[in-house]
């Protein structure tokens, strides 16, 4: 199949192939991870971002419409920094294709130029050796070879794919951290994969290794079923929600006493939201024994809607729960993003109105943040992303949302977020005061973590062995130790000016026992007696210890 022009229908086909190729290879892209930590996976993020774009496409002959729908969907579905850059790339591309029914190869090439330029301008400090470089060289090094009226789309994309491959292979030379860990840039690889998929369609090739089920059933917020397996214990129970139609055949509906109904629920679960509208009762409850609640409810009526999820697998539960609250326009809302039940609870206690469940392993998407903004229903919103790979999506969300003044405090870590929130005065301060106090506090903390390395590598001159504990201070790897406690002590000794620091707080993860955590802190107290230490059960995954130092 070859053509000198590209219209909406064909472009739509190309995009589907692009997505399928991405979906077939995203795990390999995930593995191109500099830090030996299973964090914000580029492949997953790009795949989910792209999928959200595809879902937003409505059939059209016009390439301009298709590109616009795609870009819009991607902007809202953007997840992770690479997802945001990809969405910006396609936004630029869409701007270039705007209003067109079909385009020539030269026109499409120009739109690709606009694509990478938009992606560049989305970053304050564009880094070379990343997806940006691949996007730029992928078209700039091809442009001169395009012969108007001769070069076909198949030829264009073949050249683009070649140029991107060369560019990608060169990324380690531009970005030392890639070279040191022996990988190429993952975002760039993702972009290349998109164009490879397009080329495969034009060349009539099949895409293998791609799971058909994946395309259509993929939810916006994907659920990782591996979080509950044959060895799991039911810790959190089931988030159970239903609408119950009260029935006169069962009870005297007029005399239904919601208070005693709620009293029963309270004895059988928590996080209860229950209210009655007419003869329908809405129930939300977290329970380990849903059958008891179901059986009880059926004494009063029958279900007209029912949903139940294992909370170990559930994402953005927090948001669901909050949605039930009465909506009153507020002056200021503080929204933070965190992972780990202990951390989420603490952040709420400190004054975060909404805590979105997300973080290292599941980067919150722009759309999820916008949902939270809507829900917050406030004149002013202050958002704390608390994760490096969510900051760009957070800023994109703030820009896209017009219903409130949204400010993002660019917190890169949970300790930064904690430090910021701990400065809140409890609700009576103005948005500006809260913003300024939190901004200042977030910048005053040194963030550290200790976690098991997911693979062997060498980074920042440190030899990392899989299964050993890596030590990170302010995003830099400073050491690696077989013993977790030793790793913490070694790491602290490498914090600049540690002898003059006053405060250290640590969130211990779900893989650490309370006993072990306390023992580790007692060692810290011995080694650094001047530090005021605090230990919090964070229950986060990935990081054994997240540590903040003031």
């Amino acid at each position, binding site marked *: 199949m070859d053509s000198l022009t590209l219209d909406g229908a064909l472009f739509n086909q190309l995009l589907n192939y692009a997505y399928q190729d991405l979906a077939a290879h995203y795990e390999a892209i995930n593995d191109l991870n500099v830090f030996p930590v299973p964090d914000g996976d580029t492949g997953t993020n790009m795949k989910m971002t792209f999928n959200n774009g595809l879902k937003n496409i409505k059939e059209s002959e016009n390439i301009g419409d298709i590109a616009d729908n795609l870009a819009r969907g991607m902007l809202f579905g953007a997840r992770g920094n690479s997802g945001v850059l990809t969405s910006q790339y396609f936004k630029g591309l869409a701007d270039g294709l705007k209003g067109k029914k079909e385009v020539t190869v030269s026109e499409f090439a120009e739109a690709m130029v606009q694509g990478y330029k938009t992606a560049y301008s989305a970053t304050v400090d564009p880094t070379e050796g990343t997806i940006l470089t691949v996007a730029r060289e992928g078209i700039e090094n091809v442009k001169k070879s395009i012969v108007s009226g001769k070069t076909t789309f198949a030829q264009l994309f073949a050249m683009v794919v070649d140029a991107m491959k060369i560019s990608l292979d060169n990324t380690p030379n531009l970005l030392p951290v890639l070279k040191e860990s022996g990988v190429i840039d993952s975002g760039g690889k993702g972009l290349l994969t998109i164009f490879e998929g397009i080329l495969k369609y034009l060349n009539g090739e099949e895409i293998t290794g791609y799971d058909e089920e994946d395309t259509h059933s993929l939810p916006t917020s994907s659920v990782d079923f591996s979080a509950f397996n044959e060895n799991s214990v039911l810790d959190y129970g089931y988030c159970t929600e239903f609408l119950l139609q009260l029935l006169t055949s069962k009870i005297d509906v007029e005399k239904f006493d919601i208070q005693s109904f709620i009293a029963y629920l309270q004895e059988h679960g928590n996080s209860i939201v229950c209210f009655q509208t007419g003869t329908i009762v809405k129930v939300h409850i977290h329970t380990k024994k849903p059958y008891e609640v179901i059986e009880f409810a059926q004494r009063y009526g029958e279900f007209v809607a029912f949903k139940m999820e294992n909370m170990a697998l559930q994402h953005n539960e927090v948001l669901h729960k909050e949605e039930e609250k009465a909506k009153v326009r507020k002056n200021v809302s503080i929204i933070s993003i965190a992972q780990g039940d202990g951390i989420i609870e603490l952040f709420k206690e400190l004054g975060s109105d909404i805590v979105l469940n997300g973080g290292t392993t599941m980067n919150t998407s722009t759309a999820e943040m916008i949902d939270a903004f809507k829900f917050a229903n406030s004149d002013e919103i202050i958002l704390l992303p608390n994760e490096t790979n969510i900051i760009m999506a957070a800023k994109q969300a703030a820009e896209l949302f017009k219903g409130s003044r949204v400010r993002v405090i660019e917190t890169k870590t949970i300790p930064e977020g904690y430090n910021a929130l*701990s400065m809140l005065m409890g609700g009576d301060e103005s948005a500006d005061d809260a913003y300024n106090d939190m901004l200042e506090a977030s910048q005053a903390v040194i963030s550290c973590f200790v976690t098991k390395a997911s693979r062997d590598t060498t980074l920042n001159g440190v030899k990392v062995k899989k299964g050993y504990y890596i030590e990170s201070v302010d995003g830099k790897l400073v050491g690696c130790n077989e013993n977790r406690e030793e790793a913490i002590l070694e790491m602290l000794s490498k914090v600049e000016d540690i002898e003059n620091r006053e405060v250290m707080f640590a969130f211990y993860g779900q893989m650490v026992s309370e006993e072990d955590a306390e023992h580790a802190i007692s060692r810290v107290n011995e080694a650094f007696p001047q530090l005021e230490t605090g230990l919090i059960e964070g229950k986060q995954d990935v990081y054994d210890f997240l540590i903040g130092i003031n």
Partner: protein
Amino acid sequence: MKEIAILLDSTCNMTKELMERFDVDYFRMGVSVGEEEHEASLTWEDYTPHQFYDIMRSGTRVFTIQVQDHTYRDRFVKLVQEGRDVLYIACSGALSASVKAASKVADEVMKEYPDSKIVVVDSLCAGMGQGLMGIKASEMRSEGKSIEEIRDYLEANKLKFNQWATVGDLNYLKRAGRIKASKAFFGNLFGVKPIIISDIKGNNFAYKKVKGRKAALQELVDSAKNSFVDGYISIDHGDCEADALELKRMLEEAGVKAKEIFIVPLGPILGATCGPDTVAIYHFGSEVTILGE
């Protein structure tokens, strides 16, 4: 004109030397430490300040006991019978029942002794803020001012006796409940230090948070420097003399020109409420305008 007796109470933190120097005395509140009850003595007969605060550090809770009505009565009657007018500068009415209880007793005694004068002033403060008011009253007495003149001055100026305090551990304040701040303020906080003032109603109000002790000490000095007008400064401390000395040095370095800087132990009553390692600066300065919610 009758001679004026000036009395304060256990929350004023004045040392024996200061009380002798300015010829004032105080009503003793009480503390219960474990099973025992003690006078909340500012002359520390039963234990040294260090011993007292170490008891608290070991986890023993200390409760406060207010001045008994008969204690007020006996003292007022005795002084009146000696032919003296009595000025009692009491701990903030927002923190203690002293003002209420003493006023009631004073009214009764004045009825019994028609030409007696017992004036109770609500200091709206505690610690050496209250103490500095006593010193001011003593100085005015020396200048020959009448008890009414002294009372009027104190009533008009009491919000100018400033307090800038911080604590070592928020949990003591939280447990004692004698502080105004929202629930969120006291969340699970590590290293966060509140800056506590005495507000226009005489409540302790945590109006600001800072991270770390050093930042807190700096904040106390900066606030004192901004507000200071003239006279004495007192630094009251809960067994953390090094920090008190550091504050003194910082104040001097910041160019705050006090007539004299006192360093005094935080008495048992404030100690029981605020805990070890509390440190506060008191001085005469700008009028407080903050009302804690």
